[in-house]
């Protein structure tokens, strides 16, 4: 997209938005992000990081009309504290030990707030070296969000369930203090189009687990961002299960800044029909002896497109890094496609980084084996699809949640 066109698209989108009122620290963060956004412009097809995903529907002034399916709660039955975000506002749970939760709008009204040092900070850091203009837009125009401080080990997962709204922009900030631990579950078909950002600061020795379910179905165009910063011996794990949706672009930017930190990001996606699913991940190793894993699996058919753009950047001095990245796609028919760019950028010599990417049809030998045992073709295919995705689901550490996601997959598969 030529520069003038880019400016025009950006201006048109910005004209449809107004900076939420206020004059405190939050406003300053919003204005800073808006300035950064104006400098780079909204993404276009010719931007390197959008070569496989057309951002047109995400950047146009108005969202495509579509009817998101409210759907069932994918975490029904999971023992968790629930926060609901819908058109009417945010419903908070009662007091939870080790946790301090408020809304972004409330926190923004306070003169002094710890979130001031985080809001937009990790996003801005994550926009270098690759700019993430839609995240800048989120920081500038977030309609609301949650501001969460974790001061201890929180016993139960916190479930954020978001429904309703036509074009919501949500921005959550999480600070896990030293030694703290929190698991967040995220679900809900948010709207026809939505843009979410989650900034997570995981302090020394702290742990943050994130499990997200997108879909099934729903006509949404989604653009999500995670920005995580890890201190020494900190743990970060995020897993996303997605099915369909018109367009889903999940971005994650993870910085390992303290020694001995560990990050895992994974996803299992099922695309059936004219859907586009994109995982874009950027992991930076900037400390010694850290480990990172990226594990993404996609099953695609009937015109579905899967995209994986993953990068491991090992900075000078980040010795003893162990980086791993795998992206695999199973194409169930000739109309599906998988586009991948698994990148490594390494400036330290004593490291081990491996990446792999495979694409192909279902293994005929395995299929033949099952059929020779009397399993009908359809059932055999389903079994192989599930076992393929299960390898990614294995990345979920909590046994109960892992089993829950496995059940969800089986259930979705049966309905497909």
């Amino acid at each position, binding site marked *: 997209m030529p520069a003038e066109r880019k400016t025009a698209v950006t201006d048109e989108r910005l004209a449809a938005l107004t900076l939420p009122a206020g004059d405190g620290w939050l406003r300053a963060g919003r204005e800073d992000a808006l300035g950064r956004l104006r400098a780079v412009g909204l993404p276009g097809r010719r931007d390197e990081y959008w070569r496989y995903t057309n951002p047109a529907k995400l950047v146009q002034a108005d969202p495509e009309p579509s009817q998101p399916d409210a759907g069932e709660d994918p975490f029904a039955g999971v023992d968790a504290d629930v926060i609901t975000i819908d058109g009417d506002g945010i419903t908070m749970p009662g007091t939870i030990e080790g946790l301090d939760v408020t809304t972004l709008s409330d926190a923004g009204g306070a003169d002094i707030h710890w979130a001031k040092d985080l809001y937009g900070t990790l996003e801005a850091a994550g926009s270098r070296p690759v700019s993430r203009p839609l995240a800048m837009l989120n920081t500038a125009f977030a309609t609301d969000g949650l501001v969460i401080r974790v001061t201890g080990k929180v016993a139960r997962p916190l479930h954020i369930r978001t429904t309703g709204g036509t074009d919501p922009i949500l921005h959550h900030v999480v600070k896990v203090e030293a030694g703290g631990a929190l698991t967040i579950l995220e679900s809900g078909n948010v709207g026809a189009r939505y843009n979410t950002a989650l900034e997570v600061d995981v302090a020394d020795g702290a742990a943050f687990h994130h499990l997200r379910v997108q879909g099934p179905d729903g006509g949404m165009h989604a653009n999500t961002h995670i920005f995580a910063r890890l201190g020494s011996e900190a743990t970060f794990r995020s897993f996303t299960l997605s099915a369909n949706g018109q367009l889903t672009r999940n971005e994650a930017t993870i910085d390992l800044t303290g020694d001995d930190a560990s990050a895992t990001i994974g996803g299992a996606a099922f695309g059936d029909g004219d859907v586009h699913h994109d995982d874009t991940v950027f992991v930076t190793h900037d400390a010694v002896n850290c480990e990172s894993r990226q594990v993404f699996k996609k099953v695609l058919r009937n015109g579905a497109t899967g995209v994986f753009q993953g990068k491991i950047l090992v900075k000078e001095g980040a010795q003893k890094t162990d980086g791993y990245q795998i992206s695999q*796609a199973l194409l169930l028919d000739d109309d599906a*496609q998988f586009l991948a760019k698994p990148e490594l950028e*390494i400036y330290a010599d004593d490291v*081990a*980084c491996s990446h*792999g*990417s495979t694409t192909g049809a279902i293994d005929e030998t395995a299929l033949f084996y099952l059929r020779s045992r009397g399993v009908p073709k359809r059932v055999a295919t389903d079994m192989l699809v599930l076992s393929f995705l299960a390898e990614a689901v294995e990345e979920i550490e909590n046994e109960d949640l892992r089993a829950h996601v496995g059940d969800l997959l089986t259930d979705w598969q049966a309905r497909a």
Partner: protein
Amino acid sequence: MTALDDVVVKDGVDQETVDAVKGLSGTYKHGWNTEIEMEYAPKGLSEDIVRLISEKNDEPEWMLDWRLEAYRRWLKLEEPTWAMVEYPQIDFQDQYYYARPKSMAEKPKSLDDVDPKLLETYKKLGIPLKEQALLAGVEPAPEDRKVAVDAVFDSVSVGTTFQKELAKAGVIFCSISEAIKDHPELVKKYLGSVIPPSDNYYATLNAAVFSDGSFVYIPKGTRCPMELSTYFRINAENTGQFERTLIIADEGSYVSYLEGCTAPQRDVAQLHAACVELVLLDDAEIKYSTVQNWYPGDENGKGGIYNFVTKRADCRGHRSKVMWTQVETGSAVTWKYPSCILRGDDSQGEFYSIAIANNMQQADTGTKMVHLGKNTKSRIVSKGISAGKAQNTYRGLVSMHPKAKNSRNYTQCDSLLIGSKCGAHTVPYIEVKNNSSRVEHEATTSKVDDDQLFYCRSRGMDEEEAVALVVNGFCKEVLQALPMEFAMEAQALVAISLEGSVG
């Protein structure tokens, strides 16, 4: 003393490899220059220079038009910046685009008439322009080890050996400037058909100002009776070399082609922007090997060649096969992606590369495998080694188009870092648009041929040993397949293993 002497090498890296890289980083042995009277075109680039180059080559009108169109297009293009290389802005007006030894003003009628200084130059490089002994210091080679050489010195071809013997087999091997005059029908048909003049910034520049290069035509059903090679030498100061190579392998033919390049040691960087086009018709096979040893600049990054090269093979015919092998040790900056368009059904493309970057060198190199035809196969094996403060990037594309049913790709790229101040990067693009094809990209050594692994393991080797043996054996096999001319340089590389790879 080289910068590598005080480097602490991490465990697991083969000492022999480090020594081999150190050996390469010593004094550049081809850094001398030839004192010879030259004539230059005026400095700078303009339509007049393009006309002058065309005139010097005594070209027909259509060739000049082709060049001028490319030049006008080039003026509108922007220099690409996506590669992971950094260099000062090139001043395209501050260099010469044509330099020819004065003694070449009239093309010598035979090799005996070539200026002795030029003959001496090639002799010193180990490439005697004689149709007899192959290589000084090498035992007389068997008859079938003959190698025909086209020697390109700055902007002109100074001579081509064994032309008559090749002609008996119907093989045309000459400079491209001669081909434009003597075989216009072939040149018109194929020149720019693989790399159109509009292809990219440097290819467009090359189309406008290329001064010479090699031309090969292998007729139907002919196995070229000897290996062909071109040796490129940049000698003149402040002069860019822009050569163009066109190889046409007609139905059922085979040729092995070799390319070598060196340049004197100078403080000012020099530009080399070449195009190599390969055309393969049904059942044809081309094996194209390169040992790129341009002057890499000194340890502080002063001088060296900027090597911006477009190389592409078009497997137009069914069952055609192309193999690119490259050993990249030279150049200050390398920007080079020998590619295969697998258009014909059952065609095959292979790319084997070893890129070694030391001191301040920067290499951004790889390949594109574009699968268009059914049952096409490609294989990519890339090994990058960085030392000193060098940056080495593998950049590649594997694209399976919807109609490329039942196609296969296997890619393996390994990188090794020697020292903590260098960088190794991998930027693969993988695009799969049908489900009967299989694409595998691995940066680990776990995916070598299962049968070979099983064989090794059944002989009692552990897995790691077996993988190392298979990978290294493979690597050496490629290097040893390089022609005698390059054997000496390549010998040093044979010691290289990728144990201790970072990914």
